[in-house]
């Protein structure tokens, strides 16, 4: 063994970074390079003649190509989980999947921004640099394996978003939205940072797996028996809740959703699409990472292919770790384990805490979002509430995944696969909805639902596509939005137990609640008479083609979701192992 000298440490660090980590980090590096080029190209002579759109689109497509696995998607089935940069980031199939997702979205998004003309020649480079910077932050968010990276990722994604919300200069609403967003974001980031410091203080590390191991060593059921131990647990709970505040802000989950409708109304529709699709997807994956990172250690994971039934392992683990002198408490713990069905092991209290918290917030977000959307007259505000509701629905999948992970890895993977399917199809639905809103805004300078009246007469394709997208957002077959809802409900059913059954019923009934306000928009466009004052509305060829391209998958995947589902299944095949 080599002696530990500074030289050795530096050498191994360099080796680790250059040989192992950086190759996996190529798409992010491509994004960084694009941002630098975007910002510096104008310094050079003739640089101002290069349209920033081309640089941005070339850079993002390069990043996307680099993100595709070299050996094809089948290689995901055997891809091991790796920690990059000495444990700061994690590279697994989930990272690979979500990176492809985010970068594909960014490519579409840059085209949309170009088509709607929001990024004009003058400040295009700022706009694209901000978008790519936020995307970089989201990539880091969704591969975070360390509290530091978690915080960094959230901030890197948020700060450009604040500016993007106010990118339309000279509009008061837009500036107000940006300011609201900043203040809310800064506040929650501070709370989250405090929570992180509490957690790392008690657990002695900010590296998620190490934190999980120290949590397991703490032996929470035993801690609860002493006054001092209860204090420690209280600090942990407080830290967890504060961390949750930061995540809930990114997810716009109730009760940290207040910024969402205001920002969505004030910001331009394109930016709304970015916030509602990319930002939400990254935040959901981050939530899953936190839940799985703190709630599971590799030691207590049930082995998927083992001949022993998972439940036996769980019970045995429970028996060995539970202190015998506290029979009553053990029984209580066991009982509540039955209620939430999170499996056994030393970390089961953590998972239970996580599952209860996430599922309750999910139900409230989903129901509140759907109910609050009823009264909206502005389409962007309505879609903001719809986003809150959908984020709630997706959080249910996260809760189900963590609840299942302690018992049956295969089922837990199905739950994550449902989440990824949801995220992917949500991209098409929301991107086309906001794209239509943006194009219509350019045509008729209004974002009021009432002004869409009778649109089907003058612009039938737009109205039909928007109706299809809205119905898909409700989740009715045979449109694509149905399948992820179904998969999430299936995951909730598999998770079982009274809590999850309650979530299941609430989720299913929310589908019916959501019907009315989505349909109201469709009704306004298709049934209501056209106002006399409005002239003909037509999108033009390229915008119509864009809308067509992003909304046709809603129809195709509605009838044939198989290939997409296989892909998401592949992306979770190595998870939790």
């Amino acid at each position, binding site marked *: 063994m080599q002696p530990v000298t500074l030289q050795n440490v530096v050498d191994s660090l360099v080796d680790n970074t250059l040989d192992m980590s950086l190759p996996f980090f190529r798409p992010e590096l491509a994004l960084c390079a694009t941002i630098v080029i975007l910002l510096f190209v104008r310094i050079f002579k003739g640089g101002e003649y290069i349209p920033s759109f081309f640089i941005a689109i070339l850079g993002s497509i390069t990043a996307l190509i680099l993100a595709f696995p070299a050996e094809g998607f089948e290689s995901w089935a055997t891809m091991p989980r790796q920690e990059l940069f000495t444990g700061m980031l994690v590279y697994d199939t989930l990272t690979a999947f979500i990176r492809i997702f985010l970068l594909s979205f960014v490519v579409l998004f840059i085209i949309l921004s170009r088509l709607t003309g929001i990024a004009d020649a003058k400040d295009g480079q700022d706009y694209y640099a901000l978008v790519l910077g936020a995307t970089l932050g989201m990539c880091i968010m969704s591969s975070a394996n360390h509290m530091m990276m978690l915080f960094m990722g959230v901030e890197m994604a948020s700060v450009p978003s604040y500016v993007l919300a106010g990118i339309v200069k000279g509009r008061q609403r837009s500036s107000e939205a940006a300011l609201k967003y900043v203040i809310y974001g800064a506040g929650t980031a501070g709370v989250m940072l405090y929570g992180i410091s509490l957690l790392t203080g008690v657990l002695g590390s900010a590296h998620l797996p190490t934190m999980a191991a120290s949590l397991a060593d703490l032996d929470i059921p035993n801690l609860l028996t002493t006054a001092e131990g209860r204090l420690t647990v209280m600090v942990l709970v407080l830290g967890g809740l504060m961390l949750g505040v930061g995540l809930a802000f990114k997810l716009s989950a109730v009760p940290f959703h207040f910024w969402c409708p205001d920002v969505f109304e004030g910001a331009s529709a394109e930016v709304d699409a970015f916030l509602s699709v990319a930002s939400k997807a990254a935040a959901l994956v981050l939530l899953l990472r936190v839940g799985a990172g703190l709630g599971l250690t590799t030691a207590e994971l049930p082995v998927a292919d083992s001949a022993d*039934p998972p439940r036996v392992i769980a019970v045995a683990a429970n028996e060995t770790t539970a202190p015998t002198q506290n029979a009553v408490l053990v029984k209580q713990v066991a009982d509540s384990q039955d209620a939430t069905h999170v499996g056994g092991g030393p970390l089961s209290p953590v998972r239970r805490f996580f599952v209860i918290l996430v599922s309750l917030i999910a139900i409230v977000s989903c129901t509140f979002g759907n109910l609050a959307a009823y009264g909206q007259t502005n389409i962007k505000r309505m879609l903001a509430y719809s986003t809150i509701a959908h984020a709630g629905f997706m959080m249910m999948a996260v809760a189900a995944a963590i609840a299942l992970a302690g018992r049956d890895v295969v089922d837990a993977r199905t739950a994550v696969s449902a989440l990824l399917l949801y995220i992917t199809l949500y991209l098409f639905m929301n991107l086309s909805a906001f794209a239509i809103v943006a194009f219509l805004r350019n045509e008729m300078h209004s974002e009021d639902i009432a002004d869409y009246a009778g649109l089907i007469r003058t612009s039938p394709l737009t109205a039909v596509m928007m109706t299809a997208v809205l119905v898909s957002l409700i989740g009715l077959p045979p449109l694509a939005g149905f399948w992820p809802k179904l998969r999430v409900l299936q995951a909730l059913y598999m998770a079982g137990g009274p809590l999850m059954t309650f979530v299941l019923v609430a989720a*299913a009934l929310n589908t*019916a609640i959501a*019907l*009315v306000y989505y349909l109201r928009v469709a009704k306004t466009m298709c049934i209501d008479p056209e106002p006399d004052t409005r002239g003909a509305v037509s999108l033009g060829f390229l915008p119509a083609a864009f809308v067509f391209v992003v909304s046709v998958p809603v129809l195709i995947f509605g009838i*044939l*979701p*198989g290939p997409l*589902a296989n892909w998401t299944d592949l992306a979770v095949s190595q998870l939790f192992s």
Partner: protein
Amino acid sequence: MTLSDPKVYLSLLVFLPAVAALVLAVLPRLADESYKLISLAVTIFVFILTLGFFRSGAPIDFEAGVAEMQNLFNVDWIPSFGIQYFMAMDGISFPLVVLTAFLSVLAMGASWPITKHVKGYCILFLLLETGMLGVFMALDFFLFYVFWEVMLLPMYFLIGVWGGPRREYAAIKFFLYTLVGSVLMLIAILMLYFNSDLTRLDAQQLADAGIVSVEKGGDAAQSFEKWKESDLPLAQRYAEITKEADLTQRKQLHTFNILALQQMGQHTDLFDGEALWGKSTQWWAFLLLFIGFVIKVPSVPLHTWLPDAHVEAPTPISMILAGILLKMGGYGLIRICYPICPNAGYQMAYFVCFVGVLSMVYGAFAALAQKDFKRMVAYSSVSHMGYVVLGLGVWSAVADTGYNPDYWKMGANGAMFQMIAHGISSAGMFFMVGVIYDRVHHRDLDKFGGLFAKMPLYSGLAVGIFFAGLGLPGLCGFIGEVFVVLSVWKYSYALAIISAAVVILTAGYILWAIQRVYLGAEYKGPHGEAITPITMRELSIAVPLLVLAIVFGVYPTALLNYMQPSVDMQIDRLAVWTEEHDNRATASNPLGSQDGQVADAWQR
């Protein structure tokens, strides 16, 4: 890929209207008349395709007198979710498929007065037809659900765009009611799916469920062995799971196959586990499914969407709603609720019958009170569909009757017959109301009168169709009603007496309506000058309906030949199940069957 392949033929039948709708959507602008003509041609072609099944001995046909599923096929649709494209027809669904195709032709013919946005109307109408045909043929629970939902959106717009003054309210009410029902159905589907296990079925049961294909006269066990060796994905999963010798460790092989779920419900205890609050999985599944279907039927107290939807919908859509959409609820009860969850059905038999009788009585009284002609016909639908729920629910094959299934068979056959008969008579009644509404633009019963003098031919046809709805002997309505009422006699005297008395109420509101509309000295209401004799187009819609009403009334065997074997087989199976269930209960509890006692107590 020949037309004699059920896969091709049935798919063509179901999806032809949808494809035509797509073609209409991309077609350049045509005259309104051409859209209607193309749609009519498509519906006629679909109807001819269904008539093709009557050519016995042809490469593809539907044989009368056969109880089992015919023209069955099974293809993977979404393998990763375990969903199959699985369709077939038996005596229960075949008459409904033909009725759907037939009424679609007539309803399209009745659509000629529609002049607003004709292209959109035709597209939505054709999409609706695909959904309706699909529901009756799908045997994968999920495929069924998808078709069930496919209908909602076209129906919403058909009522919402082309309806009467309160059309938007009526359309959203219809949508919301049905969606709540289908969400409950979705939960039930998940419950059944996650408790199902194909490995628990034996060779014969798998063959019956259409999973193992057996050649005519072949041996199920042999085919099963061959199937296990085959490289079908399902067979491989089956082999993989059954490799595990230890039964307690074995995984489950879930399925959405309705026939397989029926076998599991009747032959295994898979759905008997406790789900919530001491009730079994199948109890909850039955309850959720029952609510979902009964909303569609509709039964009191979940019927309130129907009068609004019917009154506001344009005439052809009212015909479709009353003639076909309501039948889906009844079809769901007989195809899904009872066979999959027999134990729950047994426990709740009296409740189901009570709901049926309540709808009959309430609907009839409500119809008596109406002043709006169309609303009266709508409430008569509530009343008449009550017979269907009652007939399906009379579980008289219990210990007291020596598990004699005959009366229940009579009830179920009556219910099925009533579905077809009501499909004919209610579509006819709505059409007749539409004919006069097109002329005088009001539906106030008190402002009619004397139409016989001005429109003798129309009035004669209308009276005939209304009599069919009334249940006059010799017309189609009679057979179903009398079967159902007779069958209840063996189940519960109280319900039998009430349901028999409803016939008087029915006669009351229909005769009174005929008196107020058609009889009387002269028409004094508004737009009297607009009353013109019935046109050829209207005649060609009304006459076939009346002819069918008479044919089925005089010669019901024509229909029963196709229907009865399948219905009887299902009831026989359920009767056998009841006996086994009671025996099991007695064996485990010497004091007597608990469930049986509950059911008995309910009866008295």
